[in-house]
């Protein structure tokens, strides 16, 4: 039982409640693009070949902020690149669909696998 629920019930002197935690499952989790970006980030996966980072460099702090490394072309949102051509409001230039449908499917597939593994008792 969660500590705050336990404290509340004990303060109220209630013992007639049945406690159950409803946990989100992976399949219901929102497909936040940030989560996908983190999963793919080589600095999190430790894939130095992809990151182009040497461990010593990273530990000396030189690579931690990515300073001096050019942004990959794909990191520049197309909507920003086309900003000058837009006239529909100041923030209109930020409107974009940042991820392709296939990328969403990748995350959905990963979450489904995780959910299946939880259901099977492997996680």
């Amino acid at each position, binding site marked *: 039982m*969660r*500590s*705050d629920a336990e*404290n509340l019930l004990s*303060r109220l002197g209630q013992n007639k409640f049945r406690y159950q935690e409803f*946990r*989100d499952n*992976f399949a219901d*989790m*929102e497909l*936040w693009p*940030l*989560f996908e970006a*983190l*999963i793919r*980030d*080589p*600095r*999190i*996966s*430790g894939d*130095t070949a992809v*990151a182009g*980072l*040497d*461990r010593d*460099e*990273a*530990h*000396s*702090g030189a*690579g*931690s*902020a990515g300073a001096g490394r050019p942004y990959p072309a794909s990191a520049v949102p197309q909507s920003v690149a086309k900003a000058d051509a837009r006239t529909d409001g100041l923030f209109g230039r930020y409107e974009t669909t940042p991820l392709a449908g296939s990328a969403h499917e990748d995350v959905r597939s990963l979450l489904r696998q*995780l959910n299946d593994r939880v259901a099977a008792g492997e*996680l």
Partner: protein
Amino acid sequence: MPLIVCHSPKGGEGNSFVAAGLAQGLSLLGRDVVALDMTAADGLKSYFGLAPDQSLPDLEEEVIDQLTVGGVGLRSGWRAAHQPDFAEALRAGDLPFDGETVFVADVASTDTGLAQVLRRRARLHVCTLTPTAMSLAQLPRINPARALGEPERTTFVLNQLDETRRFARHAALFLRELLGDKLIAQIHRDEAVNEAVGMLQTLARYAPASAALADMERLVIAVDGLCAGEAADETVRAAPRAAKNEAA
């Protein structure tokens, strides 16, 4: 060398709160503990019920009357840590991070250089995160080019968790999967933490039944266990070296 470094990649995550709670909890477990404020903000003392005008003795200062709260010694390491020869002194063992005393260091998020120097000598690095998008976005900066799941001495605490918020629930779920055993505790958002500082009291005194305090107890027990495990590992690693030196 019982140094525990509390450092987050982003400010406002509750790093000082976690450092203070760890120091107080480890002291209650019978450890000899010094809480080291290595930040310019000087905010660690607030979680010990001290007023803003109360200054902490310097780390390197010879102090006769120690400033202790609840058995925890309080020191400021800000000045010492920004001396040019700090890293060298640390390497040479001139700083008191040996022996039985547990030092819990609160390092500012922006002070990444200091955090790296200290982490090399630390028994444990405790990284506090919050279930917010901005906090998660900082994850790649913690151990660049090193997988977060690798067996390093970095552990994570999810602070200010409010499960009534959708993103927070999903972030907690995501972090549990991403970090696995490295996520050693989660602390629920609790206004009592803020109110205790406002009352110039420790959380344990102001709100002993608070949810955050109960969560903190779990964190303390986890950290104490990890430190004990690391100490045993260090002994095992040091034994062959000692035998070799003796033979030579």
